[in-house]
C-alpha cells in the first residue's frame, strides 16, 4: 500500500498535473455517484487521456497493491463508483471520442466516456441509433452502461446493453490488454462478453466499446392508458404480452408518481387514474398502425378507462417526458428519495404493489412507483428526509424488505442498476454461499489481489 504522496508522485511520472487530483477541494466532486447517501473521498483521482496512461495507472496500482475504482459519469444508482478512501478513483471521463462509425456495418466504436445519448446523436445522420436508453442517457456513459448492463424503457424490444454490444477492449488490473467479443458473430471459446458486461468494474477497465447500431424506426406512437385499479393495469400488461405483442416500451406509473411528474413536466397525465400505462409501438407506418390498433383493443378489453394516442413526435416525447423525469420529479416533493430497482415476474406485480403499500404504512414513508412493466422491473421511490436519522434508517429497512420480497416471488434484487454497495447485503438473500463463492473465484481469475472495485457487488463470505 502506498501513501497519498508516494502514489501521487508515482502517477505524476507519466500523467500531467491536471490528470492527478489529490487536494480535497479537487477530489470532493468524486466522493459519490448517483447514490448520494454513500460518500467517501478518494485518496487520489486519476484522469487518463490515453490507453497507455490507463495501462500504466493499473500496472502501478497492481504493483503497489492500491485499490482502483473506475468511474464514468457518476450517474450510477447503486454506489458502484463509490471511491476507495485508500485508493485511486480512475475517471474515464476524458475518453469521450467516437472513434469509428460504420453505417454499412451498423456499428460504432466508441470510448467508454462517450455519453449514451451521444452515440445515437452521432448515428442519426445515417438513419441509425443505439437502442438501450436508460433514463439518465443524456448524462450516463457507455462504459458505465457496460459495467451495469443497463436497460431503459426500450430494452423490452431491443434488449439490454449486453444484446447491443459486440466487442470490448480494455485492461486487467495487471495492465494486460484484453479483447473480448468480435464484430463477427459467435466469438470462439467461452462467452466472456456476457461475463464482462454487468461486471460492475470488477473484472477489467474498459477502454473501447463496439456497439450495434440499428435503423431508426420510421415512426413511433405511444398510447397513454388510464386504469382505475393498479392490479387491472398489471393484468393489462400481461394481456398485451399474451396477445403476442412486444411493445417498443411498456411502462407503468401509479397515482403518486403521476402526480409528482405532472407538477414537474405538465405532460397531460390523467391525475384521476390509479395507474397509467405508456405503451409504445415503433416500426414502419404499416406496422405501427396495425400494432397500435391491436394494443388499443387489448388495453380496452383489460379495462382501460381512457386512452390517448400520440399524434406526432413532439406529443410522443411529451407523453414520455414524465416517465423519464420521474426521479427528478419526486426530488421536488421530497428532500430525498431512495430509488429502488428489483425485477419480478409480471404476474406478481399486484401482490408486490400491495406489499409496498403495506410497507408504506409500516415505516410511515411515502413510496410512489414507476415500472418497466413490460419487464417486471420496478422502481419504487421511497421518499424521506436524510436530515432525520430515523427516516434514513426506516428507508433502508423498507428497501431491504421490498428486495427480499422480489426474491421471494421469483425475481431478482436488481434489474438494471447493479448491486454496487447498495444491495450487497441482499446478495446473500438471492444467492447461496456456494454461488457467492463461485462469483469470488471468477473474480480471482481476473483480479487475484482484489484491487478492482473492492467491496462492491459480490459480498465476501464473512458477511
Amino acid at each position: 500500500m502506498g501513501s497519498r504522496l508516494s502514489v501521487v508522485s508515482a502517477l505524476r511520472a507519466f500523467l500531467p498535473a491536471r490528470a492527478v487530483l489529490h487536494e480535497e477541494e479537487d477530489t470532493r466532486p468524486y466522493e459519490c455517484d448517483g447514490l448520494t447517501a454513500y460518500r467517501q473521498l478518494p485518496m487520489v483521482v486519476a484522469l487518463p487521456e490515453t490507453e497507455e496512461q490507463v495501462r500504466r495507472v493499473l500496472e502501478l496500482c497492481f504493483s503497489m497493491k492500491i485499490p482502483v475504482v473506475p468511474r464514468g459519469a457518476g450517474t450510477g444508482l447503486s454506489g458502484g463508483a463509490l471511491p476507495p478512501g485508500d485508493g485511486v478513483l480512475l475517471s474515464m471521463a476524458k475518453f469521450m471520442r467516437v472513434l469509428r462509425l460504420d453505417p454499412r456495418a451498423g456499428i460504432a466504436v466508441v470510448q467508454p466516456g462517450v455519453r449514451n445519448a451521444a452515440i445515437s446523436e452521432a448515428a442519426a445522420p445515417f438513419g441509425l441509433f443505439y437502442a438501450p436508453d436508460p433514463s439518465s442517457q443524456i448524462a450516463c456513459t457507455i462504459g458505465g452502461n457496460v459495467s451495469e448492463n443497463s436497460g431503459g424503457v426500450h430494452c423490452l424490444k431491443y434488449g439490454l446493453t449486453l444484446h447491443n454490444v459486440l466487442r470490448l477492449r480494455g485492461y486487467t488490473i495487471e495492465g494486460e490488454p484484453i479483447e473480448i467479443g468480435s464484430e463477427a458473430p459467435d466469438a470462439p471459446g467461452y462467452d466472456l462478453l456476457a461475463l464482462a458486461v454487468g461486471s460492475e468494474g470488477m473484472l477489467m477497465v474498459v477502454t473501447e466499446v463496439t456497439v450495434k447500431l440499428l435503423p431508426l424506426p420510421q415512426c413511433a406512437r405511444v398510447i397513454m392508458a388510464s386504469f382505475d385499479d393498479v392490479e387491472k393495469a398489471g393484468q393489462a400488461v400481461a394481456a398485451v404480452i399474451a396477445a403476442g405483442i412486444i411493445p417498443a416500451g411498456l411502462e407503468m406509473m401509479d397515482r403518486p408518481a403521476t402526480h409528482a411528474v405532472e407538477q414537474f413536466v405538465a405532460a397531460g397525465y390523467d391525475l384521476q387514474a390509479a395507474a397509467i400505462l405508456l405503451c409504445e409501438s415503433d416500426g414502419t407506418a404499416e406496422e405501427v398502425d396495425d400494432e397500435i390498433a391491436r394494443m388499443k383493443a387489448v388495453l380496452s378489453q383489460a379495462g382501460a378507462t381512457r386512452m390517448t394516442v400520440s399524434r406526432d413526435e413532439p406529443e410522443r416525447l411529451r407523453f414520455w417526458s414524465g416517465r423519464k423525469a420521474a426521479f427528478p420529479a419526486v426530488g421536488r416533493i421530497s428532500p430525498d428519495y431512495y430509488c429502488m430497482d428489483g425485477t419480478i415476474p409480471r404476474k406478481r406485480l399486484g401482490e408486490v404493489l400491495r406489499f409496498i403499500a403495506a410497507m408504506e404504512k409500516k415505516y410511515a414513508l411515502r413510496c410512489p412507483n414507476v415500472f418497466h412493466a413490460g419487464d417486471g422491473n420496478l422502481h419504487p421511490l421511497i421518499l424521506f428526509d436524510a436530515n432525520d436519522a430515523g427516516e434514513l434508517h426506516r428507508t433502508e429497512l423498507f428497501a431491504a424488505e421490498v428486495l427480499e420480497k422480489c426474491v421471494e416471488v421469483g425475481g431478482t434484487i436488481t434489474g438494471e442498476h447493479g448491486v454496487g454497495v447498495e444491495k450487497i447485503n441482499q446478495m446473500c438473500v438471492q444467492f447461496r454461499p456456494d454461488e457467492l463463492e463461485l462469483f469470488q473465484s471468477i473474480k480471482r481469475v481476473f483480479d487475484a489481489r482484489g484491487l478492482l472495485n473492492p467491496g462492491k457487488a459480490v459480498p465476501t463470505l464473512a458477511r
Partner: protein
Amino acid sequence: MTLEPFQERIRDAAARGVALRLRGGGTKDFYGNEPRGEMLDTRTYAGIVSYEPTELVITARCGTPLSEAERLLGENGQCLPFEPPHFGAGATFGGCVAAGLSGPRRASAGALRDFVLGARIVDGRGRALAFGGQVMKNVAGYDVSRLLAGSLGTLGLIAEASLKVLPRPAAERSLRLEMPQERALETMQRWAAQPLPISATTWHDGELLVRLSGSTPAVAAAAAKIGGEPLEPSPWAAIREHAHPFFAASPLWRVAVPPVAPPLALPGAQLLEWGGALRWLAGAGDGAAVREAAQRVGGHATLFRAREKSGGAFAPLGPAAMRLHRGLKAVFDPAGILNPGRLYAEL
C-alpha cells in the same frame, strides 16, 4: 426428480480423476473436438419445469427433448427466437444450450445466448448451483448462466435452463432473387440499414433467399419493396438442419465474419447466412488458409464437420485469452473431468 444421481456421479468421477462425457441425444457428437470419457446420459433428468406464455419464459430440464419444448411453445403461438438446429431427432434442451448454436433467425432476433435467463448446474465438484432466474432484467452477480451457453459441457452439467421466448410472427413469406455473391452481400447490407422485417437470408449458387416475418401488412409492404419471386416450399428448415445437399460436403467449415467482409477468396463452394456474417465453406483443403482468411477480415473459422479434427475444431485463442479460459475452467471444474478437450485441448 432430483439432481442427486448426477451430483454423486460427478463427485465420484472428480475423486477418481476420471473424465465424464456429458451427453444428451448425441446429435452434436460431431461438433467440437472428439468427445471422450465415461458416458453420463443427461436424458434421465427431463421435463418442462414451468412455462408462462405471458411471462415470455420457458424452464426445462436438460433431458427434455428440444422438439417437445418447441411443440409446447408452438401450441401457444410462441417460439425459441434463435431457431436452434437440432441435427437429429434426439436433440435435448440442455444440449441445445451447451452447444450454443443458433439458426437462420439469429441475425434478426439474436443468438441463443441472448435468450438465456437462468440456469441450474452441477459443477465439476458435484455442487448444485443456480444462476440468473426467470426474468430478463437481472444484473445481480456475474452472468454465469449466459457464460454456460456454448461451453459444450466443459464448465458444468446444465441441469435446467430458463430461456426467453417470443411470439411467433403473424405472417411469413419467402422470396428468391438471382444474383452473384458480391451483389448479394451489397443487397443484404442495404436491406440491413432499412427497417425491413427480414428474419433470415441465405445466398448460395447465384440465389439469394430471404424470409420476411412480422405483421401481415409489414410483410406485404416489404415483399413489394424487395421484389423477387415467391419461394415455396419454405427452404429454411432444410438450411437450418443441414439437410440441404450443400452441407453434405466434408470437411465443412463454419466461417463467421463481420457481415461487411468482402467475398472470401477460398476454393470450394460457399453458402452464406445471417446477412453475410456466416459463411459455410464446403470441401476446402487447406485449414490454415481458411483460418487465415477469416482472421484477416476480423472473423474466425470453425471446422464444423470433418473426419479429421485432431488440429482442433475451434479457432485458436491467444495466450491472454487462454489464460482466462483455463482460470475459469479451474473454477468450475478443478479436477478437469467434464468433457475435457471438447472445446480446446487445454480445457
